[in-house]
């Protein structure tokens, strides 16, 4: 897709007058491809710096599914830190075993790490849980996202530990984060609402960081498109069962009519988190009595799943 314009009279970049490729309604401006790339790289760098997500000496594992968000994340981190000797990047891909879906994104992930020259580890559900997600989910398809979320988290940690990681970076974008805020409100789950998975864990678990947390999904897609690295990959077939799908559609419509809604939800989360600091559980404080992993109850979510159906 060309960075060059279309025609006179078309919306122009607010910074240079070149034809615009995106209308940033929350910021009240248009940007051309070149300035969109610069803008996203600057905002991601600021998020990383202000939240101290990555510091000298870190080994950062990047959860790389091969989809758009993780592809953008690895590209950005490689661009920002690729030449740094004091920071190591390792991509981790989880193969859940989702037939007809995961094969294409894994190929995309493999192509990307090869092109960038980034270390790559692949962890499969077969290795960690003894079976594919497709098999594990039989008869439980409506719970797919909850179950897969728990299993994926564990598989990523296995990969991160193999790499010797000090941080685990995921490609969650602003839309994902704002949806999570709203879903936790709808569920009345205050603990999850205020949880900060990037907090210093005192070495109990690998902190998770989300450098794209203030970048909209459409900005990410356009960022990839203008660099010629956009791939029209399929969506996970299980996503149709998720509450998130309904929340996503609703929130996206509200954001379009009322730009800045998603950012305001994130701000609200911060305010609530500050107000409740110490009054509700943040990150897990206990230890699972069966596997020893950090958790907030007696049994971690994975062990609860194991009891219900895993071998």
């Amino acid at each position: 897709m060309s960075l060059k314009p279309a025609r006179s009279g078309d919306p122009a970049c607010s910074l240079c007058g070149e034809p615009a490729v995106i209308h940033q309604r929350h910021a009240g401006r248009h940007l051309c491809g070149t300035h969109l790339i610069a803008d996203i790289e600057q905002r991601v760098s600021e998020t990383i710096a202000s939240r101290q997500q990555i510091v000298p000496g870190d080994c950062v594992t990047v959860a790389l599914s091969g989809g758009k968000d993780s592809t953008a994340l690895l590209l950005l981190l490689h661009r920002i830190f690729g030449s740094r000797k004091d920071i190591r990047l390792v991509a981790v891909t989880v193969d859940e075993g989702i037939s007809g879906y995961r094969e294409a994104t894994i190929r995309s992930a493999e192509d990307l790490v090869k092109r960038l020259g980034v270390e790559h580890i692949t962890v499969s559900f077969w290795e960690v849980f003894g079976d594919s997600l497709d098999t594990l989910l039989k008869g439980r398809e409506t719970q797919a996202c909850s179950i897969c979320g728990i299993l994926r988290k564990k598989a990523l940690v296995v990969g991160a530990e193999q790499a010797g990681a000090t941080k685990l970076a995921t490609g969650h974008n602003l839309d994902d984060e704002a949806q999570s805020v709203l879903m936790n409100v709808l569920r009345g789950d205050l603990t999850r609402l205020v949880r900060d998975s990037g907090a210093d864990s005192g070495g109990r678990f690998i902190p998770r960081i989300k450098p794209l947390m203030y970048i909209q999904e459409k900005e990410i897609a356009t960022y990839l498109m203008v660099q010629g690295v956009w791939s029209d990959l399929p969506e996970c077939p299980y996503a149709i069962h998720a509450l998130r799908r309904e929340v996503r559609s609703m929130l996206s419509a509200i954001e379009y009519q009322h730009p800045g809604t998603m950012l305001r939800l994130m701000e609200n989360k911060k305010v609530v988190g500050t107000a409740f600091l110490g009054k509700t559980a943040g990150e897990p404080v206990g230890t699972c009595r069966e596997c020893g992993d950090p958790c907030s109850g007696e049994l971690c979510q994975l062990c609860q799943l194991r009891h219900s159906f895993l071998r």
Partner: protein
Amino acid sequence: MKLILPDRSIRAIDPGPATVEAILEKEGINPLEVMVSRDGKLVTEDTVVSGDDELRVIRISHGG
């Protein structure tokens, strides 16, 4: 005008000069959930299109 939708179906439409936003709205598509190209070049939703333009609507797949 030729309109190519995310499911690759092709429609001939004649909205006169109209914004991309108006065309998407008529199709029930939220502009935040798609990218749109005109004759192979990305355009914003407030771009006015007309005549023989070829519009392609690219769905932004979620996740990943």
